[in-house]
């Protein structure tokens, strides 16, 4: 084992569960925004939280959510997911929730998304199915 890995290994003494919660919050931000944790720019790197904070203050969910979703998401659910992500990342570890709370909230968020109206893609498919089935009745 190299000196470096010995040090890394010993360093774990100061990690705790809330350190994982912080990392999970960053991971969640990444899933929501499609941005990496460190965003490369002209003046060096910007941390994803620095990037997202002003957009949250402006309430600009459309700019926060990964544009590649092309509008196929439930806005309330997206806010809820972002709220969960941001609850994981206070600088003080004491203020971060437990993973069991995060899991419960995420499941609620997922249920909200699944119960919302069908995505654009599903609607188009459903129209096509209904179109063929309904055709004889319409004649």
């Amino acid at each position, binding site marked *: 084992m190299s000196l470096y890995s010995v040090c*890394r290994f010993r*360093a*774990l003494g*100061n*990690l705790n569960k809330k*350190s*994982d919660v912080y990392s999970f919050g*960053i991971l969640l931000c990444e899933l929501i925004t499609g941005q990496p944790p460190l965003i490369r720019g002209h003046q060096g790197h910007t941390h994803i939280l620095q990037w997202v904070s002003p957009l949250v203050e402006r309430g600009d969910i459309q700019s926060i959510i990964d544009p590649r*979703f092309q509008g196929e998401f439930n806005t309330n659910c997206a806010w809820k997911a972002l709220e969960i992500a941001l609850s994981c990342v206070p600088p003080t570890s004491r203020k971060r929730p437990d993973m069991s709370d995060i899991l419960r909230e*995420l499941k609620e968020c997922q249920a909200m998304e699944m119960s919302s109206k069908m995505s654009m893609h599903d609607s188009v498919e459903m129209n096509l199915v209904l179109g063929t089935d309904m055709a004889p009745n319409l004649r």
Partner: protein
Amino acid sequence: MAAENSTNMLNWRARLQIAVDAAQGMTLVPESFFLHFCSANFVGLTGIIELAGLEYLHNGCRPPIVHGDLKSSNILLTENLQAKIADFGLSKAFANEEDSHVITIPAGTPGYIDPEYVFKLNVNHLSQCLFS
């Protein structure tokens, strides 16, 4: 995190599922593995890659296990886009809930690392590690 599908991009629902899976874990992992993983003699699993979810590591294991290097590249996706946390190279089991603060040197990955943890970097502890 890269997944091969027709659009090469994970939609919103798929990403929500990944978040839930990563938080949840344990569903497909053999019980025997966790019996070993959670044993009292467990110290660390440097280099060993296995799969689990965070909530289980924190609350389903006694002693609880801290992953220590959670990031998107450590999230593996199955063919069905089910997410599993991998790479326990930095993980550690603690003797009890409150155990911590032995040596403080940043571990983990820039961008994902707990700012409070970085803040606690202590030069004395660094030299203690380097010269012991």
